[in-house]
């Protein structure tokens, strides 16, 4: 029983911790619709300090500053794209958790399709080979049969 309770506590903690970073009421916008938009934007932006968290999840100082900037801009009536562009201009592609398609990221975006194409080509090749393989080899000619018999004779001796 105690173990189950402990597990539940951990689960609750795991569920709550990302929200805890932005849990401060002083940080949130009054209007719930605007706050929701600010969160959606924040989840698109990487925290440059922790690098594997969005600014909504991070406890870093810089992430808090950026959350505040996002909320100020949302409250000022900017669109989601405008707010993201503001941060993108300053921190570059790396700040976007969904990198844009450019020459530098072409390999990144193309890799799944290249892998898929390679796999399909491999399957097709194998299937074609299977279809060819069952064909029985042509029967031996009389000459070949004679040579085979001679060889067998030799090895039997």
């Amino acid at each position: 029983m105690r173990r189950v309770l402990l597990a539940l506590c951990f689960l609750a903690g795991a569920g709550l911790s990302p929200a805890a970073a932005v849990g401060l009421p002083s940080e949130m916008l009054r209007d719930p619709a605007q706050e929701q938009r600010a969160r959606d934007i924040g989840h698109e932006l990487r925290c440059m300090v922790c690098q594997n968290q969005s600014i909504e999840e991070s406890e870093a100082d810089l992430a808090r500053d950026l959350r505040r900037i996002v909320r100020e801009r949302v409250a000022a009536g900017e669109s989601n794209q405008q707010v993201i562009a503001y941060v993108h201009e300053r921190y570059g592609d790396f700040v976007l958790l969904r990198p844009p398609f450019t020459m530098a990221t072409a390999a990144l975006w193309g890799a799944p399709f290249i892998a898929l194409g390679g796999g399909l080509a491999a399957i097709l090749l194998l299937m074609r080979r299977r279809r060819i393989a069952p064909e029985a080899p042509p029967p031996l000619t009389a000459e070949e049969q004679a040579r085979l018999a001679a060889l067998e004779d030799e090895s039997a001796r």
Partner: protein
Amino acid sequence: MSEIATKPRLGRRRALLFAPLGLAVAGGAGFYAMLRGMGTGSYDPRGVPSALIGKSAPPFALPPLEATGLPAFAQADLANLPGPVLVNFWASWCVPCIIEHPQLMALSREGVQVLGINYKDKPADAATFLTRHGNPFARLGRDEPGRVAIDWGVYGVPETYLLDRGGIIRWRWAGPVTPEVLQHDIRPLLKRYA
């Protein structure tokens, strides 16, 4: 007859057997290069290129740190420069800033303009830091809210930017300016943009 037909196919197949080996060798070579780069400092997996390279500094105007008597610092001060300048973001609470300080002092003694932006610091602490370690800065601005730093794309102190005489940002270093960085990066850049 059939022997002649199968021979080249077998050869090609055998070559295909070496493909995984070739891939593994290529991967290993790449991985080795990465590790070597991490060792020598030429490759930093956490390093992020600045979005401001090739652009002029963003608009800003910062208040001075009164106790030092140094002039304040604004975007207008970064145009028509006599030579390339360094803009250094630092704070008294930042430990790597102590490591890089002697290098900044050396540059300033050589006549290179080092401009300081004091990031999220208390004025008294910043002034104490400069009296204790020396002042390398020709100008010094205070960015207590850290907003100007965000406009520059700063994600941690210390960070150092090199601007050419036209005020265009040419180089950014996130982390302390070690003697190696000074030797391998800053000195050649200062020469190139002189």
